[in-house]
């Protein structure tokens, strides 16, 4: 029996299990609605390091070690580490993992990296190519500002529709033992809706999320009603509404079970974050801190986790290019008691 169902979705008969997970965030995220859910909140944005980039790397390392601790395995037992981030050459992940002595697969999916890493990790397990893997990613507000816009010292102003890059990391260890399982993976195609405004990422990424979710529903024969919760990574308030509208035009109601991690991680009104959180660390920390825990607690049994990213660079934007989006999705299911 082929494990391919439809054009983009894969069914994983061995249902790789979540053995451990962790989330580490910064001060602002700790002050948000999900504050108590994270494993560690750093009051210091430098994480005790000398630069923002070193801080991001340190945060990723800390999150990774916490996840391995909770999975009760030494990091050296892992068969693969799949990681990526937003910085040039994905240095914060690479430097965080340089001492790990585990085969390292570096990824770039922008804000879709958590779903990409988890998906690929699940495939490695289901294909019997690995017994235990760890997928992780993160982002840092200050490094993202330097990477994509200007260093903070420039003192630039933010527009109402811009999002706030989350300072946070999420790590998930997949293996054979656990009550939560990855059952399906839907890999996304690049979707470019012609949006050029980097201050409006939500509208650039929503079409990609729509494309992947629609493919998932079509391939599996399921609908939003088959899930207890559907999460997108960081479409933000605006992107969340656009996605709902896109589905409504098809006569599909995503329903109240559809939530966006960028809207969950901050109190939009009180914390002054305009359209919400963004960055790899947004959905990664919400997944590692909130969603998986809630599933284990019995809040949700079957969750569709879809992270979307914007595949542009500052250079491409300056050259007048539009912003291509990508969205990867996976299904998490809790074992029946």
């Amino acid at each position: 029996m082929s494990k391919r169902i439809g054009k983009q979705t894969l069914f994983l008969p061995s249902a790789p299990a979540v053995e451990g997970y962790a989330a580490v965030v910064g001060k602002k995220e700790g002050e948000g609605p999900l504050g108590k859910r994270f494993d560690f909140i750093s009051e210091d944005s430098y994480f005790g390091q000398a630069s923002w980039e070193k801080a991001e790397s340190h945060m990723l390392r800390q999150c990774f070690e916490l996840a391995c601790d909770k999975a009760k395995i030494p990091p050296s037992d892992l068969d693969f580490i799949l990681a990526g981030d937003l910085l040039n050459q994905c240095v914060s992940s690479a430097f965080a993992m340089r001492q790990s002595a585990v085969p390292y697969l570096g990824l770039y999916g922008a804000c879709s990296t958590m779903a990409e890493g988890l998906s690929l990790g699940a495939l490695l397990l289901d294909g019997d190519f690995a017994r235990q893997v760890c997928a992780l990613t993160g982002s840092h507000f200050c490094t993202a500002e330097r990477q994509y816009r200007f260093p903070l010292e420039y003192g630039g102003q933010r527009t109402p529709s811009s999002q706030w890059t989350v300072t946070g990391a999420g790590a998930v260890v997949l293996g054979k033992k656990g009550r939560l399982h990855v059952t399906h993976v839907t890999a996304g195609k690049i979707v470019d809706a012609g949006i050029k405004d980097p201050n409006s990422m939500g509208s650039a990424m929503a079409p990609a999320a729509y494309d992947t979710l629609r493919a998932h529903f079509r391939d599996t024969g399921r609908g939003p009603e088959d899930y207890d919760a559907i999460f997108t990574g960081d479409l933000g308030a605006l992107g969340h509404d656009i996605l709902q509208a896109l589905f409504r035009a098809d006569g599909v109601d995503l329903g109240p079970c559809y939530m966006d991690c960028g809207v969950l991680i901050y109190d939009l009104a009180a914390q002054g974050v305009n359209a919400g959180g963004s960055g790899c660390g947004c959905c990664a920390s919400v997944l590692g801190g909130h969603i998986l825990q809630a599933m284990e607690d019995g809040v949700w049994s079957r969750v569709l986790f879809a992270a979307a990213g914007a595949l542009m660079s500052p250079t491409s934007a300056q050259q007048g290019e539009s912003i291509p989006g990508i969205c990867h999705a996976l299904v998490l299911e809790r074992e029946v008691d």
Partner: protein
Amino acid sequence: MLLQYAKVFLVGGALCAAGQLLIDYTRLTPARILTGYVIAGVLLGALGLYAPLADWAGAGATVPLTGFGWNLARGVKKAVAEQGLLGVFTGGFTAASAGLCAAVLFGLLAALLGKPRDKN
């Protein structure tokens, strides 16, 4: 004197408010707004409209970037009158020299003495 301060803050504030409206309601990037202000200052100066505003509002007109544009234009005009066409290249820098040097110097001092902080 209180009246003088009021004029300064009203005009300076109005110029800043215009910039904020551009940020909030247009897709213009801050960089474009910045250069737009400088060019606006040059144009208004060329039309002879900025000098009276600067006389009336003092720092409220000279501190915002439109004032910088006006200053550049005046410098070029003066240099062209004194040196001919070469003045096109030298005039702006001469007029802005104190401000540019101060910006670089204080920027360096800030970098040496301070550590960048998160925007929390």
